[in-house]
């Protein structure tokens, strides 16, 4: 006998079941967010927080163009990182899920290792490699290249390299899972229908791996807007991104209201971009 499931919000059982999650979300996410918002209407004087309600911080945020320059730079870098990661991750994930199926478990272990290896260690490793007097230039000089052939450390390119390097496993893993879950019979059916390998990939595998590509993109974008290690260590700190600006504002300037406002602006813009992409993706899907 089928029982009718009550979906009403008045259903007490639903409330009881949802209560732990509601409490957790309220105390761990919503309350700090509300506090952050409240903080933006206070001000600091002599490095001390004064609980006096005012709009000075928001006036500052919207009147100083450099906050928006840094935010724009952050978004560009994050989007570039997403694009590069997806382009690199897609063939890797495809190869891992199809050609190297026998090594499935080993590959999962390796990807897990990439997640648990400290990003600080990996990032500083790149400095040793890319530096003017680093390993890359040494090796190239041994091969007859002129000194300092590799000279892009402390530029945005180096920052992007670090971001891609540290965030790539997220893209590989999500896309790999997506491709791995594709029903092989669908691809075989495409071959039976006369499609070549490329066409089968383009018309069957790629569309079906979209959930993984999308999940990976969102993950990398959100992590990308929050990076501070790569611009600082590999970018040489000369092209700061939003996370570093927020850190400086909180820690060095001890201006908590401004730091809180910049945090909220970054969150809002990041969510807006994700929603925008999701809307565009949704429209394209509906159009197909």
């Amino acid at each position, binding site marked *: 006998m089928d029982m009718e499931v009550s979906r009403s919000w008045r259903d007490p059982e639903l409330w009881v079941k949802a209560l732990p999650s509601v409490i957790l979300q309220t105390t761990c996410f919503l309350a700090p967010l509300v506090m952050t918002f409240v903080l933006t209407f206070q001000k600091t004087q002599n490095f001390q927080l004064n609980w006096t309600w005012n709009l000075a911080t928001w006036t500052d945020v919207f009147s100083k163009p*450099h906050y928006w320059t840094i935010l724009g730079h952050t978004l560009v870098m994050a989007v570039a990182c997403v694009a590069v990661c997806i382009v690199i991750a897609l063939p890797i994930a495809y190869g891992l899920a199809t050609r190297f199926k026998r090594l499935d478990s080993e590959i999962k272990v390796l990807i897990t290792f990439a997640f648990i290896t400290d990003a600080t260690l990996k990032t500083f490793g790149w400095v040793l490699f890319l*530096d*003017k*007097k680093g390993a890359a230039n040494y090796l190239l000089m041994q091969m007859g290249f002129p000194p300092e052939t590799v000279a892009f450390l402390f530029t945005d390119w180096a920052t992007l390299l670090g971001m891609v390097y540290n965030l790539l496993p997220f893209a590989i893993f999500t896309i790999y899972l997506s491709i791995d879950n594709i029903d092989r019979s669908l691809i075989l059916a495409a071959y039976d229908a006369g499609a070549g390998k490329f066409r089968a990939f383009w018309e069957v595998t790629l569309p079906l791996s979209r959930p993984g590509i999308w999940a990976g993109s969102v993950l990398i974008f959100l992590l990308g807007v929050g990076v501070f290690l790569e611009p600082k260590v590999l970018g040489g*700190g000369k092209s700061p991104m939003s996370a570093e600006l927020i850190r400086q504002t909180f820690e060095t300037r001890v201006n908590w209201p401004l730091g809180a406002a910049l945090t909220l602006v970054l969150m809002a813009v990041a969510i807006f971009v994700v929603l925008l992409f999701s809307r565009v993706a949704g429209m394209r899907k509906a159009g197909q």
Partner: protein
Amino acid sequence: MSKTWYSDLPQYYQRQIRAMGLDEAGLNRRRLLKGMAGAAGVAVLARMSARQAQAATQMTYMCWEGYNDPRIIDPFNKANDTEISFDLIVDSPGGFAKLQAGASREVDIVSSDMPWITRMGPAGLAMELNPDDYKDVYADFYDQFKPPFEPLMNDGKTIGVATRWGWVGPCINTDVTKPEVWKTYDAVFDPANKDKICVMDWGDWPILPMALHAGINPYEPLDEKQLNEVRLVLRAMFKNTRTLVGDLTQAQKGLLDGSLLGCIGAGSYLTSAVRKQGHKNIMAIVPEPKNGLKQGIIWVEATAVLKETDQPELSQNLLKHVVSKDAAHILALLDSTCNVVTNKAVESVFTPEEKDILQMDYMWHAYDNSQMHRIAPNIDEMLAIWQEELAAAQ
């Protein structure tokens, strides 16, 4: 073949599991819970035994790494039956902000940069100290740091006791550049040095020397015109900057391998650890006075006792211990950084090699040609200018 809890793993791991006898254990819920209960029991027992071993008094010390060196702290713990836990700070403003946010109720004593210790006075965080209670301590001090030591005073009251010090000035590799070149900061702006200058990204540390170079005394209230001069000098500095680093090792590596000609916004704090490793070609110097302004900056670390401490006497004893001869000797020659201390008596235990590491033959020259670092009235405006110019330079 029946499916086991590990049959999905690669053969290699399966063999390892069987070899270790873990296959027979079988990871079921009951066993897992049993294991967890056992682990919890062990944890409770460990906690109980730890409690039995606990000292009579618990204290919390907020400080830079190094002040927590066991060679400094263990003798104090033993002598006073205390157990000190540490709240290590990575930057002074962050530590100050944390105290303001409520950590002042937990922390008993703080060792941080002097301007932030002094700020604890008007913020109502620090206990006012009676210099008479510290006569024995000050008897061993260099005259420069004896009371009344104005930079550590608020409304005529002493807020803390100076512990370590050093100077801010160009850090150079004498194999690559000559100290004479750095008698002024002009080399920072020389187009020939483009992409060879490192700037230490430590809050106000790089801003203040640049202001002094521009003929502005940052330790006095500044008007719009003077702030604009600071803006222009920072803008020019960013043009030649190869990298801004927040990490000492990056700057030290660049100086050692010669990829960086000079590092500004740092000083003896950066060079001493490298000198300790035998690289005496790395040194921190102070430019000559310019436009009537001394170009070097003396930084001082100080220790203060929190107003809300429940151990005022013990905290003051710890403060006295930290600046004592034996503790100060250790504090002067840590692995991460080496710096001169305020206790003159330590000189008698320094070896000539240790004195050389600390550039002690140079320290009073540096002191005489430097401003004493203190609260810069317009530092927030200058930090905002820094952010603006950095964003514009990208």
